Structure formats: structure tokens, C-alpha cells
């Protein structure tokens, strides 16, 4: 299956890209997606979304999902 991964803000700069496509043949969680895009542990307080909704790191993903990782929000 294919997962579209996005990075925002400071994480985007650290990753050097605003996203990538990852592929996996077996079941996958958000944590698993993170491990496919980098060897580093996720920064403290890093947030994640699946298909535009906040989710936990244990959430399962499915083929075609959009998963995003980003630091604490600072709008308003």
C-alpha cells in the first residue's frame, strides 16, 4: 500500500522536504510510517494526523491515506 506523508514547519525544515510517498506490504501504524521515513525518534510533542484528523501514534493506516507530522501549533 501507498501512504502520502507530509511534514510541516520546523519538522519540514529538519526533514529537508515537505513530504514523500512511502510504500509498505504489511499492516502499518502511524509509528510505523514514521520509522519508514527516518531513523530518528520523533521529537518530543510531535503531533500527527491521518486524513486531516489528529490521531494517536498507534492508529492504523490504510492504502491511500495522507499522514502528516508536525510540531505543536502556534496560530492565532
Amino acid at each position, binding site marked *: 500500500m501507498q501512504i502520502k506523508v507530509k511534514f*510541516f*514547519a*520546523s519538522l519540514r525544515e529538519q526533514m529537508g522536504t515537505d513530504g514523500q510517498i512511502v510504500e509498505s506490504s504489511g499492516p502499518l501504524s502511524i509509528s510505523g510510517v514514521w520509522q519508514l521515513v527516518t531513523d530518528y525518534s520523533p521529537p518530543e510533542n510531535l503531533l500527527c494526523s491521518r486524513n486531516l484528523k489528529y490521531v494517536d501514534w498507534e492508529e492504523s493506516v490504510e492504502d491511500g491515506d*495522507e499522514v502528516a507530522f508536525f*510540531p505543536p*501549533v*502556534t496560530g*492565532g
Partner: protein
Amino acid sequence: MKIEIRPSAYDPWQEVADFQAAANKLSPGSYGACAVFVGTMRDFNEGDEVRSMVLEHYPEMTVGQLQELAHNAMVSHGLIDILILHRVGEIHPNDPIVLVAAWSAHRSEAFNACREMMEILKSKATFWKKEKLVSGERWVGKNTPA
């Protein structure tokens, strides 16, 4: 109800006046209370002079988040109407960033809803600020809690 992400500068008081005059739900005499909050860019933050700022967001998420928090506020506070604007892109000191306005029959609902919407927006909506200082840049780490 009007919810917009703005890529360029806006006049918050003109926006409130125009929306109030044009909104079908805000017919003359129907509302008794309007509470408004406007957040504006300061030229100083955490002890440093700030020259400008870039406001990045996750567009596919932010629009839905603002619509959802506005819809929830409409229902839970029995509001008459809501206006929310949020700036993105390159911002300079004195530029308005966020505008949240709530209209209701009586003051309590408008006050409570306006504040609640701002707190949800600041804690949940996927915007990020990067400040340009006199020397260098930095990402704002987190928002102040309520």
C-alpha cells in the same frame, strides 16, 4: 457564517462592519451582543525585536478545523452568526493575524463563544509561526495556554 484563510493583509474592523451589514442572519434588531477578538502581530516577542513572520499552515486541515469549531460554537452557545478570518503567509508587525467574532441575543453567549473559539483555534488549528529577528529566524515553540 464566514470562515476564511487570508493570504494578504486585511482591516479587521472593516471586515466586521461589512459582514455584519451583509449577513442574512444578522438582520437589524435581531442581535443584542457581539464579541470580537483580534490578534495582531507585535514587533517584540520573548525579549527580542521581531521584524516579520511567516505563518505556515496545513490548508486541507485548517479550513475544516475552523469550520468545525465555529459550527460547534453556533450549536453549543446558540449563536446567531460567526465570522472567523486567519492570516497566512508573510506578516509584518501591526498586521492582524486572527479575527473571531460572535453574535448572539445576549452578552454571555457571545463572550463565552468568542473566547472558547480562540482557545480551540490556538491549541488545535494547524498553523505555525516562524519569526524573523534582527539576526536569524526561529520557529515559535508553542502558544501560551488560556
